[in-house]
């Protein structure tokens, strides 16, 4: 009897078993994908080509769908503004009165700040350039909170760039395509942001958990925070510049200190991406630190030999006991220089003379009483 001649019910068991095997194979694929993902890293290459391709492909579709969404949102905003015009007017008048006081304070503080900087000779940070972008897709689930913005590498955006709304910090760029970039929000469960409490200068890590108010973790000091404190980026680690507004401290239902984000109250469809680059974000920073020192040239060798001779001659001719600290220092410096000279002789001299380096060895006269 051929396979086709069997009744349908004879094939039920083999088909069920085959489906079971398919489930197992699919599960193995899913677990392999999980284990192979490196989402939490900040490096651009960790984001992966697949994610970049999907972002690039979904950008035009999401953009097309988002456009009527923006119009609809504007219509709802207009309706709300119309209905709440009276109360909004009252609230805005009060806010303007408060802001006048703040403006006076800001002018005085700015003036004082500039004078103090001039007195101290402080070098101020240059202004950070920024790019404005539309948000075209927004995920807000418990396991992933990201946004897709319609600006990418073509506008100079790089992985790690901070992203702000018109009110406060939103997150940072984790993936960049040609004309699209993926923003990891502060509320994402993988987000960790170094922050400080403005009032006490206490440091903490803002940890997202998929909810609207991320937690303040790893706080130091006694009573470092209270409800209503302003939270700013601390700049630690160099991922964000210092002083970006993040939000206000609130206490969650679970008793944990949380932050009500400033960016929550701003429109969702526009973001500003700061083209901020810190030293720690430079790709070749490791190479820059571990670069070998330039070899000594012939002229340098002669100079070092002269210094050794000058230091050892008075030490030998001196009648004073050689157990004093000055003599010991002079002897040690002379030994170091002699070792450096011996080491330099084993290295070939460079074809071009190296750039001048600042002298770190104190002159011998400094050590003598």
């Amino acid at each position: 009897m051929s396979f086709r001649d069997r009744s349908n019910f004879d094939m039920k068991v083999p088909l069920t078993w085959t489906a079971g095997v398919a489930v197992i194979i699919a599960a193995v694929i899913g677990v392999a994908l999980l284990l192979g993902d490196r989402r939490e890293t900040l490096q651009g290459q960790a984001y992966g080509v697949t994610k970049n391709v999907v972002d690039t492909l979904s950008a035009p579709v999401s953009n097309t769908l988002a456009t009527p969404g923006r119009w609809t949102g504007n219509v709802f905003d207009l309706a709300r503004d119309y209905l709440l015009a009276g109360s909004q007017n009252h609230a805005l008048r009060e806010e303007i009165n408060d802001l006048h006081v703040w403006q006076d304070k800001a002018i005085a503080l700015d003036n004082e700040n500039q004078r103090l900087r001039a007195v101290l000779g402080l070098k101020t940070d240059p202004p950070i350039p920024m790019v404005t972008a539309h948000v075209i897709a927004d995920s807000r689930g418990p396991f992933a909170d990201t946004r897709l913005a319609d600006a990418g590498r073509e506008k100079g955006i790089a992985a790690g760039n901070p992203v702000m709304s018109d009110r406060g910090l939103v997150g940072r760029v984790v993936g960049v395509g040609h004309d699209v970039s993926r923003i990891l929000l502060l509320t994402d469960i993988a987000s960790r942001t170094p922050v400080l409490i403005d009032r006490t200068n206490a440091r903490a890590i803002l940890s997202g958990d998929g909810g609207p108010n991320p937690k303040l973790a790893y706080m130091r000091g006694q009573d470092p925070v209270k409800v209503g404190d302003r939270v700013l980026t601390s700049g630690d680690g160099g991922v964000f510049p210092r002083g970006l507004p993040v939000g206000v401290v609130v206490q969650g239902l679970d008793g944990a200190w949380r932050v009500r984000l400033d960016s929550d109250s701003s429109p969702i469809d526009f973001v500003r991406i700061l083209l901020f680059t810190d030293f720690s974000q430079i790709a070749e920073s490791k190479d820059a630190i571990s670069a070998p020192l330039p070899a000594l040239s012939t002229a340098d060798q002669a100079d070092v030999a002269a210094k050794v001779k000058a230091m050892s001659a008075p030490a030998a001719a001196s009648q004073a006991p050689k157990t004093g600290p000055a003599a010991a220092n002079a002897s040690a410096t002379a030994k170091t220089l002699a070792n450096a000279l011996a080491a330099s002789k084993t290295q070939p001299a460079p074809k071009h003379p190296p750039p001048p380096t600042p002298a770190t060895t104190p002159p011998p006269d400094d050590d003598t009483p």
Partner: protein
Amino acid sequence: MSLMQSTRPLDPWRWLGLPALACMGGAILFAIPIKVFSLQLPEPVFPMVLAFAWAVIRPSVIAPFVLVLLGLFLDLFWGGPLGLWGVSLLASYTVVLASRSIMTGQSRPMRQVWFAAATAMTMLTGFLIASILSLAVPNLLSVFWQFLATAVLYPFAHRLIERFEDADVRFR
């Protein structure tokens, strides 16, 4: 000829392909960045409808792979960890597939309860995976909202089951 027709009564494109595309469309549509009176759109897990309905309709070799692909799409589109939704959907699919004989002949409210339970299992699996991967506990309220937004999608699953459940007599 009639035997061939009865052994392959379900066109995979009709009961697997089109619903999968519809779920992708739903996910893209609900990702629109819009705020209405300061409220954002919910974010239901549309492929949960398929994870439940496909398992109830009949065992399939293609369905689990399509589910993993849909999960992968959600991970990529939502920017989450790769494999999270694939594994989560597959977990509930496996449980529903194993217990489909119990569900056969159940009333609509009872099936709705089963669907909610399967959704809860998907969310629980996602919760555990996200906790392990990020070494942090996801916000329970946020998980509950997504569960709720997904659980109300049962009418779509019911329609799919009603349409294709009797299409293959071998698995009734």
